């Protein structure tokens, strides 16, 4: 039986460790957007020993490149992008305190191992539900890499943002295995 939790950011070990696959989380607080190009820069900054544009401790990264905000709205459509492209970066960020990532699609074994090692989770948001998910985003501001346009890092204020636990901190995975018996 899946449970629904209301959680607020930043996430703690305790928040994360009670989550099991299939649980629903309604998240309130601050999350950070980053996708392909922003991850490359984040990791380059770490290599150079620079401080990152946001504190990774207890943080959540949302893999998203939103559409431009139309007049009167904080942000445009904002659903998840496919996560595997960030797999090579995620373990390092988890080792520095990142508590969760939000995206869609499968993660690598390395990422799953990092979730267990660093008490973190991978959340799925519904792909292609960009207009719907946008309703839970109350404020957005670019905090780094503005030149990347849709790929810039944004700080989002979310209220009851709906998430599904896809990979938990004990190695569980929610996605079904395809029945291939041809």
């Amino acid at each position: 039986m899946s449970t629904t939790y209301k959680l607020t950011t930043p996430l703690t070990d305790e928040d994360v460790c009670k989550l099991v696959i299939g649980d629903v989380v309604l998240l309130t607080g601050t999350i950070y957007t980053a996708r392909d190009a922003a991850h490359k820069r984040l990791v380059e900054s770490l290599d150079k020993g620079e401080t990152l544009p946001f504190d990774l401790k207890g943080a959540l990264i949302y893999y998203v490149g939103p559409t431009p905000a139309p007049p009167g709205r904080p942000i445009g459509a904002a659903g998840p992008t496919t996560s595997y492209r960030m797999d090579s970066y995620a373990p390092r960020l988890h080792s520095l305190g990142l508590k969760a990532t939000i995206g869609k699609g499968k993660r690598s074994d390395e990422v799953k191992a990092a979730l267990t090692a660093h008490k973190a989770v991978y959340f799925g948001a519904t792909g292609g539900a960009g207009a719907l998910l946008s309703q839970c985003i109350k404020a957005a501001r670019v905090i780094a890499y503005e030149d990347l346009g849709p790929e810039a890092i944004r700080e989002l204020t979310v209220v009851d943002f709906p998430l599904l636990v896809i990979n938990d901190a004990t190695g569980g995975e929610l996605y079904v295995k395809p029945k291939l018996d041809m």
Partner: protein
Amino acid sequence: MRIIPAADVIEAVATMCMESNVELPADVWAKFRECAAREESPSAKEIFRQLLENADLAKETRLPLCQDTGLAVLFVDLGEDCRVEGGLRAAINEGVRKGYKDGYLRKSACDPFTRKNTGDNTPAIIHIDLVPGDKLKIFFMAKGGGSENMSRVTFLSPAQGWPGIKDFVVRRVAEAGPNPCPPTVIGVGIGGNAELSAIIAKKALMRSLDDVHPDPDIAAKEKELLDAINELGIGPMGLGGKTTSLGVKIAVAPCHLASLPLAVNVQCHSSRHREVIL
């Protein structure tokens, strides 16, 4: 020779960019409802509920259905007795530029090496066919990257035939799993050569979900593939269920004696397309 004003093309293309991104085509909408009714698992039902709510909301608020508003892909049937003032390609690209700007759509085109965004979602990917007559028909598709990344072109040995084709397509969908935002639509290009198989697979996605292929043998193959794909049980968003794909569309072209080219173009549930005749 009929002269079509560039402004007409620009306006028509810009409108298709904006409309397709906020209003799901009626065939996709209907298919969501039909498939939702067949699902038994709570997660599959819930995903369809969200997708339908998302589609309603997008139409009402004019927020895009999905944040990935795609690369602009256009198939053009250009009548041999007409031409577009100032050039067809220039007009189409201007229409895309305008549509993506005025519609607050995301610009997703970038340089493959530097990854620098071109800033206006151009150049569009444009396929032009010359056809008899003096009409200009333009098909537009907003094609997302997540589903496109799951597409493949391969070369089977002619001996592998239909069983080989079926095996490759079903395995491709299985391997893609939750990544391309299932329930998907699968375009299959069989024959031609490396580029033609890919182009016809993409163009097949422009067909309405409810149309039946005019060749009964191909229509039966489409159904056979769809049934095999839905047997995989991947379901909406990969959470399990009866609907892994909404439809399979096959296009066929003659090929070399030595080859059996095969292209699989994966389209997500956000199957956004429009067409216009000028």
